[in-house]
């Protein structure tokens, strides 16, 4: 059994069936790229994994823990859903940094709130017992993450003073600060100028070397081919083809995949 298992996921908006029975699995430390044309359901799939949309039915398992089960999702409390969603992190296409917070505080905000909550209920957060110590840990971790994305010198800047690529790197650090089991990227470079995509893709590559489990929705076919262990091609709400990059990108059997790839390669 794989680390992440998605079984028979379905999602409709009104009568529009966006995800029709999506199943796939991913091993720990693997990178999955999801490609396909706009409207194929890629983003909706990612949003279902992150509980920004609630799937209508299906099952999502991480490790041996069921994080989503369409059958008894209604019985779950808000707190339980919040806990489950933290197994996934999400980096948005449009960064969505919090403009009023400095870079460092963008990263520390959510962990600090979580620490406060845990100290209140358990009297402990990551082995420390006071908020001050917790904040110290959180700050150290944030600085370490900023170092990782090469932006430590920008820690006291506000997001409005950063370039798009820098913003996206901060957003990645922010998502990592909560230690998600699976980190998702929703077209992380689509809102960037071409010369800025490289720095973001490099960060994702480095994360792969550090054995992060990741799912990347992307239009960067070359990047997907180079960095992924597995590729899914989505078309009209179904997985039209999946497998190794060699199989899906170099030797696709599905006609829609071939048509898509030739269009992307020629543009």
């Amino acid at each position, binding site marked *: 059994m794989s680390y992440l298992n998605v079984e028979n996921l379905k999602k409709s908006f009104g009568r529009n069936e966006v995800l029709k029975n999506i199943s796939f699995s991913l091993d720990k430390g693997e990178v999955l790229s999801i490609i396909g044309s706009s409207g194929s359901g890629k983003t909706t799939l990612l949003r279902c994994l*992150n*509980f*920004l949309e609630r799937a209508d039915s299906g099952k999502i398992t991480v490790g041996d823990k069921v994080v989503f089960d369409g059958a008894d999702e209604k019985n779950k409390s*808000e707190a339980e859903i*919040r*806990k489950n*969603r*933290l197994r*996934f*992190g*999400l980096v*948005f296409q*449009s960064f*969505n*940094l*919090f*403009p*009023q917070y400095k870079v460092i505080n963008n990263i520390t*905000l*959510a962990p600090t*709130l*979580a620490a406060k909550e845990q100290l209140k209920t358990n009297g402990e957060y990551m082995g420390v017992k006071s908020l001050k110590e917790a904040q110290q840990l959180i700050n150290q971790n944030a600085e370490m993450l900023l170092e990782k994305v090469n932006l430590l010198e920008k820690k006291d800047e*506000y*997001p*409005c003073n950063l370039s798009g690529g820098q913003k996206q790197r901060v957003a990645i650090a*922010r*998502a990592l600060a*909560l230690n998600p089991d699976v980190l998702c990227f929703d077209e992380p470079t689509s809102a960037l100028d071409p010369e800025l995509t490289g720095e973001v893709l490099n960060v994702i590559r480095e994360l792969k070397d550090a054995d992060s489990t990741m799912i990347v929705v992307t239009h960067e076919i070359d990047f997907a081919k180079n960095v992924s262990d597995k590729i899914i091609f989505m078309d009209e709400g179904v997985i039209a083809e999946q497998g190794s990059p060699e199989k899906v990108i170099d030797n696709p059997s599905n006609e829609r995949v071939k048509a898509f790839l030739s269009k992307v390669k020629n543009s």
Partner: protein
Amino acid sequence: MEQFFNVTGNLLEGFGQNCIIFAVTLVAAIPLGLIVSFGSRSKCLPIKSITRTIVWIIRGTPLMLQLFVVFYIPSLVWGISFDRMTAALIAFVINYAAYFSEIFRGGIEAIPKEQYEAGQVLGMKKSQIFFKIVLLQVVKRITAPMSNEIITLVKDTSLARVIMVPEILKGAERFTMQGLIWPLFYTGVFFLLFSGLLSILFKFIEKKLSYYEG
């Protein structure tokens, strides 16, 4: 000269009433307006339509009429009566809460939904998202329309004289009846000074909030 000091002292006393109405309205109508703005954004249809109807009625009728309603209706219908100042305060707070609520609603709806989603995927609670992420961005966006509304409030306070609250214009009218007309125009100075101070304050707040963009 003595007459000038006499008039100034007298008007100042009246202006104290205006200041009370101003301060109480501001302090009470801002939180009430926030609650009303939640009501008019509610997903529960009855709450939403009731709130929006009330806001429509309050914004659609003159404040002067509302002052009369609050002052006379309770005593006519239930036999209870508020003193003049209390009636004025109730009318002002309700009226301004309705206006503020629309400004708040506009400000809240201007925040992109991605800001909420970013908070959600970071495991934050709804209340945390509102207070830690959305609120300050809303404050920044509504500073200009709020300053407008608050300066209007300074001048509106003089409407309280229709239910005989002894505010500044009421005081000036007393001098007019004695044949002294200039105090009536002199009241303008009080309003100008007060709204001038407020303008400076709002400039300062806007500057304070300009440390970030977006």
